């Protein structure tokens, strides 16, 4: 009887423990799902807003470049000089007209620089460089391999706006076809610096920091050897480089801040990020710094012509609207675990007490069962709670079960009957 009671007690304790364990796991799982869902939505929203800002910055410079080209650069007189600079038969006349063309456009280029334009570059129909206003001494090099945007516009005669690495530096290129009286004069490119793009993004998101990293293999295949000094390995991944990370050049973005560097170091061990970078996918994550501040880091791939990943735009945002569940997730899991531990503790304690009682009862039964005298125990209602074998024997009962639960009056009655 007592063994079966003990077993049923055990079963109840085990059941409670299993239920509380399952409850804790389910609660943890539910919290985790909620956290993932909220986090993904948060990342999605942030990535979308960065994409919108990035695209609007590209569009801003695209329309601005188009406006500059139509309104200021390519008036009929300038086009005439350009035509003569390319097509005059006499070499001296070509040089003279090119010089005049340079003279006419130089003040405009100086003005454009103040708008964040880095490069004003004219290319010939065969993709050779004709005149770089940002580097007038360097010309006539073939751009077919390094500058697919130039090849694209020369072939299709359609303008294009795209991010592209290059021989000298990277930039957001706006390339337009040029014609004079129906004659193909090649293309012209108005490029925006990384610095201008970051400034434009900052004008939309003042409190965020932005940076670019570039596909190392792709950039190394294009760069002039003398330009390679400008590129240093990114802390995030060896497959990517930063351009002019020390801001040697005036039109380079500011060097990364200490916080950005600390974040980049942390990101290096993020295997999910490394996978995303490898497959040119967008990515977003949250990092908690040593100063207890949370940062949301988003990676937006910059896909160039021929679908090649040219690099990434990275946004570093100090989080102010982080979903509550992300902040409380860890404490909640700890609290749940503590509750489970407390339940386990209470159950174990109850079980121990129960075991002790059973043990005491067994000890008492062993003693009373071996007594040479009859013994019975009644409760306050005079009902028999316990009777030992000797008492059963005296009363003429073989099994004590017959006596347990009977009233003591029954004894008196039985005794008088026996007498």
């Amino acid at each position, binding site marked *: 009887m007592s063994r079966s009671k003990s077993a049923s007690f055990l079963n109840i304790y085990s059941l409670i423990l299993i239920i509380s364990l399952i409850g804790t796991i389910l609660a943890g799982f539910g919290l985790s799902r909620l956290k993932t869902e909220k986090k993904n939505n948060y990342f999605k929203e942030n990535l979308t807003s960065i994409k919108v800002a990035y695209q609007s910055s590209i569009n801003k410079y695209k329309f601005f470049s188009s406006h500059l080209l139509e309104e200021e650069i390519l008036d009929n007189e300038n086009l005439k000089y350009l035509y003569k600079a390319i097509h005059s038969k006499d070499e*001296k006349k070509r*040089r*003279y007209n*090119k*010089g*005049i063309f*340079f*003279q006419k456009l*130089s*003040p405009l280029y100086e003005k454009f620089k103040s708008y964040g334009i880095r490069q004003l570059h004219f290319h010939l129909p065969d993709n050779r460089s004709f*005149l770089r206003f940002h580097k*007038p*001494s*360097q*010309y*006539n090099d073939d751009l077919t391999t390094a500058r697919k945007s130039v090849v694209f516009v020369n072939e299709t005669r359609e303008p294009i706006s795209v991010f592209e690495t290059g021989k000298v530096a990277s930039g957001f290129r706006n390339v337009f076809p040029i014609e004079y009286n129906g004659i193909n004069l090649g293309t012209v490119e108005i490029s925006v610096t990384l610095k201008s793009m970051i400034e434009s993004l900052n004008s939309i998101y003042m409190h965020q920091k932005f940076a670019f990293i570039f596909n190392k293999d792709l950039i190394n295949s294009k760069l002039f*050897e*003398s*330009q390679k*000094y400008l590129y240093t390995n990114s802390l995030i991944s060896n497959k990517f480089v930063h351009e002019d990370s020390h801001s*040697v*050049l005036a039109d380079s973005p500011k060097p990364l801040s200490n916080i950005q560097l600390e974040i980049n170091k942390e990101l290096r061990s993020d295997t999910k990020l490394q996978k995303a970078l490898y497959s040119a996918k967008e990515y977003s994550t949250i990092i908690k710094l040593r100063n207890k501040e949370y940062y949301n880091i988003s990676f937006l791939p910059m896909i160039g012509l021929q679908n090649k990943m040219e690099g990434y735009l990275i946004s570093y945002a100090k989080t102010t609207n982080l979903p509550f569940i992300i902040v409380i997730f860890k404490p909640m899991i700890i609290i749940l675990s503590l509750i489970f531990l407390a339940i386990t503790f209470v159950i174990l304690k109850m079980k121990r007490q129960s075991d002790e009682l059973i043990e005491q009862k067994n000890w008492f039964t062993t003693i009373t069962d071996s007594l040479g005298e009859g013994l019975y125990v009644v409760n306050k209602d005079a009902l028999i709670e316990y009777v030992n074998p000797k008492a059963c024997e005296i009363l003429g009962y073989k099994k004590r079960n017959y006596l347990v639960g009977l009233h003591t009056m029954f004894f008196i009655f039985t005794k008088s009957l026996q007498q």
Partner: protein
Amino acid sequence: MRLAIQLFLIFFLNNSLFAKDTFIFSPLPTEDKKTLYNTFYPMISYLEKKLNKKIIFEYSDSYDEILKKFETNKIDLVYLGPLPYIELSNRCSCAIPLVNFKNSEGYTFYTCSFVSFLQNKKFDTIALTQPLSTCGYLAVNYLLKNRLKEKKYAYLGRHDLVALEVLKGNFDAGGIQTSIAKKYHHLGLEILSKTPDLPTFALIANSKTLDIDEINAVKRALIYANKSEIKTWGKPISYGAKSTKDSFYNNLRKMTKNLSIPQKGNF
């Protein structure tokens, strides 16, 4: 006491014990910072590996600032044209010429040119580089047969700026290194006259900041650099280097002897 003197001699007279870990190198600002950095970065990397030292690239906008930094031991190695070297050697005996850099024909001399835009006939306004530039007042005055003081002239700083300002029509003519003038030939920049050969640009060491072993090590590294290595250096220094000495500059010293170069332009 004897031991103390010996220790003093060992620690204070043997410069090699104070060998520097870092050298400061500065070029004359003939072109913009980016171009100069591109030109010298491969050579700096080569010297760093060869000498096992770190070399810092120091850029200054003014010729005079560079000479002052050299005199005050803030620069260990400097890339100078002949006139700045003469000026520096007048100011400090610590300037030790190590090598002259060869030009594309393999010679260690160069020329300065008086340039103008195609078809330009008047030469009233003249763009100059810097007072201490060989191709500045000295060369242009020589090419104009000592009549530069009759013209309006201004110092613009760099050779490429002089070329660009002439091309933009802001000056009638200018004086720059012939090799730089050739880069702008396609835009109509014409070379009207050239100086006789002058010693090419040189690398000068500072004997106050570098010991004799370090100076010789730099000189050897440059003279005996592999051709394949030198080819990767910027164009003005990509044809190798030849040992030089102070007496190579004696002819130029005679040219500058009675010439007072104005430190400011006259318009």
